[in-house]
């Protein structure tokens, strides 16, 4: 077996620098050994890119899995294979994965699963235990947790939140918190708008997110904690982030993939596939998220992959659990947004490569000599009907049946090819 691979004739893109050129990339010993025009080497396996795009593999900071602990219909193996097929080289399991990643032992379970995973697998640790005590953040981070974050449901107790942020600030780790005012958000399932009110749904105002951002900004200022605003979805939230940034606060923010493509009108037919949390917002909110990505205010896009069992989704909108399987939609979604002139591909890729890499201090996510050879080759213009050719994730997706463009052809992690698309 060859230790080196030469990818020739690719459109090499580096989202971090925004550069793009025709060229070759040589992989040796798991790292990018050389980037340039007309590279040659003896003994390397040659992969002809035939003009496809070659980019750093994606880094997804938030995907829910059904493990550790109780497994649902989508096993972690499914999720991992879906990640490889999606071009995700680094997958961070969200803290609420499985029965919850609340102890260092849970992080170790994920870390040991990572040994046999096709992609890099990391875990994020929960902020609190099932009994409501502060979780062992220090030990979880020491065990390799990527960050500390809330599960489902927001922390309402300001004193606890202050102590938590103070405590974790000492470890220089990110605390991912969903900006929400619990008293406004609890029990709601739709964005507050004239449309959702007419549908008779319990609604959540955008104000809830704005208040959430503002209070987290204030707590961040007090405690010096590094707060990652988890899944901003409203223009109000973006404005509040802008104000906090203006005051010089070190706050990062992520946006969920679904909210870049869909708005509340997609939800209007009350298809449970579009039951998401946070709920789909107005078109103006979607536009604000895209603008915030394009101008760099928002650092990260997350798949917010959430495997919900199909039989649970087979219920009325209000009764179906929130969530959608989104991993394999990442590249098609970015390519479609680019083709429609809504979000430049570079901005989208950046928020899934160098953006999250910088946040977590990871080496991968860059097209640089010496960087880990986590790469994807994709065809940005291949038309796809999402799910038509089958998916690795068996869980229902909001993207199902959607006409998109963009297909992952190959994925490498640490120089090893972990996925190759086979044309039918």
């Amino acid at each position, binding site marked *: 077996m060859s230790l080196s691979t030469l990818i020739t004739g690719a459109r090499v893109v580096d989202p971090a620098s925004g550069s793009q050129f025709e060229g070759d990339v040589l992989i040796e010993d798991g790292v990018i050994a050389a980037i340039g025009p007309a590279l040659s080497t003896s003994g390397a396996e040659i992969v002809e890119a035939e003009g496809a795009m070659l980019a750093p593999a994606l880094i997804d900071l938030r995907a829910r899995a059904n493990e550790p602990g109780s497994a649902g219909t989508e096993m972690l193996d499914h999720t991992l294979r879906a990640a490889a097929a999606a071009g995700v080289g680094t997958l961070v399991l969200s803290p609420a994965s499985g029965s919850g990643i609340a102890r260092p032992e849970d992080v170790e379970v994920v870390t040991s699963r990572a040994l046999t995973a096709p992609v890099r697998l990391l875990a994020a640790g929960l902020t609190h235990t099932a009994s409501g*005590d*502060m*979780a*062992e*953040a*220090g*030990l979880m981070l*020491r065990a390799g947790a990527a960050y500390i974050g809330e599960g489902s449901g927001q922390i309402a*107790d300001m*004193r*606890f939140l*202050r*102590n*938590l942020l*103070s*405590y974790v*600030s*000492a470890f220089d780790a990110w605390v991912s918190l969903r900006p929400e005012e619990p008293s406004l958000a609890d029990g709601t399932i739709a964005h507050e708008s004239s449309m959702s009110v007419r549908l008779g749904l319990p609604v959540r105002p955008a104000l809830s997110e704005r208040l959430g951002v503002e209070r987290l900004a204030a707590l961040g200022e*007090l*405690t*010096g904690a590094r707060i990652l605003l988890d899944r901003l979805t409203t223009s109000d939230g973006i404005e509040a982030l802008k104000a906090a940034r203006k005051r010089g606060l070190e706050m990062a923010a992520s946006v969920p993939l679904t909210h870049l493509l869909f708005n509340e009108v997609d939800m209007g037919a009350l298809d449970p596939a579009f039951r998401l949390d946070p709920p789909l917002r107005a078109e103006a909110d979607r536009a604000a998220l895209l603008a915030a990505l394009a101008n760099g205010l928002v650092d990260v896009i997350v798949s917010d992959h959430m495997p919900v069992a199909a039989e649970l989704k087979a219920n009325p909108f209000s009764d179906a659990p929130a969530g959608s399987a989104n991993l394999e939609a990442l590249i098609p979604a970015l390519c479609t947004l680019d083709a429609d002139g809504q979000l430049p591909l570079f901005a989208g890729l950046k928020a899934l490569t160098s953006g999250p890499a910088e946040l977590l201090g990871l080496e991968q996510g860059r097209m640089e000599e010496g960087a880990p050879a986590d790469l994807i080759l994709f065809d940005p213009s291949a038309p796809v009907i999402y799910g038509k050719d089958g998916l690795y994730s068996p869980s229902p997706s909001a993207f199902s049946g959607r006409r998109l463009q963009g297909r992952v052809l190959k994925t490498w992690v640490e120089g090893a090819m972990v996925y190759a698309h086979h044309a039918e």
Partner: protein
Amino acid sequence: MGETSYRFPHRGLTTASALNRVDLQMIADRAREHLSRNRETDKKHPSLKGLTVINLFFEASTRTLASFEIAAKRLGADVVNFSAGNASLKKGESLADTAETLAAMRPDILVVRHQSPCAAGFFQNTTGVATVNAGDGAHEHPTQALLDLFTLEEHFGDLGGRRIAIVGDILHSRVARSNVALLSLMNAEVRLCGPASLLPADADRWGASVFHDLDTGLEDCDAVMVLRLQRERMSAGFIPSSREYAALYGVNHDRLDAAKPECIVLHPGPMNRGVEITSALADDPDRSVILDQVEAGVAVRMAVLELIAGRGPQEVVL
């Protein structure tokens, strides 16, 4: 002649920051005499003969109460103890009434421990009776700081330039507050180290440097003062668990590698062995001066009681 003399000016001790370097010297000199006498078979030195000391402990305590009681008794005072379990302290009267009632019995010294910050000062102001603060909430515990200082000076001599780390729950610690005042006065370099949620937000303005990483905090330290971790800090959501605390902030031989090779360890007690300090370290005669602290406690309290009562060597030539 050019010689000036200084008279010990205090008729009570409610805060460590009231003391100057000469006061500290006078207390230490006198305590040293008591310390050696306390090792004799005849420990009596009846300088407080005829005086009445009331130990008023609103908060449970065994070691501090015993230390004050022994100190007063060795000095020949008549000692009365009221403690938390005592019904007379729970009759629902105001603290001012309690103070005035006791004062009417003509005690000479009140030793007060109370859960409220500044309660000892309240007693002194209400009654005018010389009051020693034996711990008031998270405010101060001046005699603990004095005995810590005494123990350190017995070991090192002058503390100027010595690096001393106080490790643990600084936020709720009266011991830390009193110690920072005295150690800074003696020109020691004070470091405060603990979880960020257990350090006051403005601790860096106390004249001490603040650390959240134990290995960094202990670097080149001459002494480490380990504080007791109260169990209720976990349930109140300040820190996750005693397991994590022990792993990150528990002091043991390995962690002390960062400190100077001759670094000593203090603890005000009572200890949670295996949490903030390992048994092996607490019991290591080369490192631990914890029992020296307890012994010094009686001698230092004898000196304080004498001096505030005006029955000690009250004057010193500068």
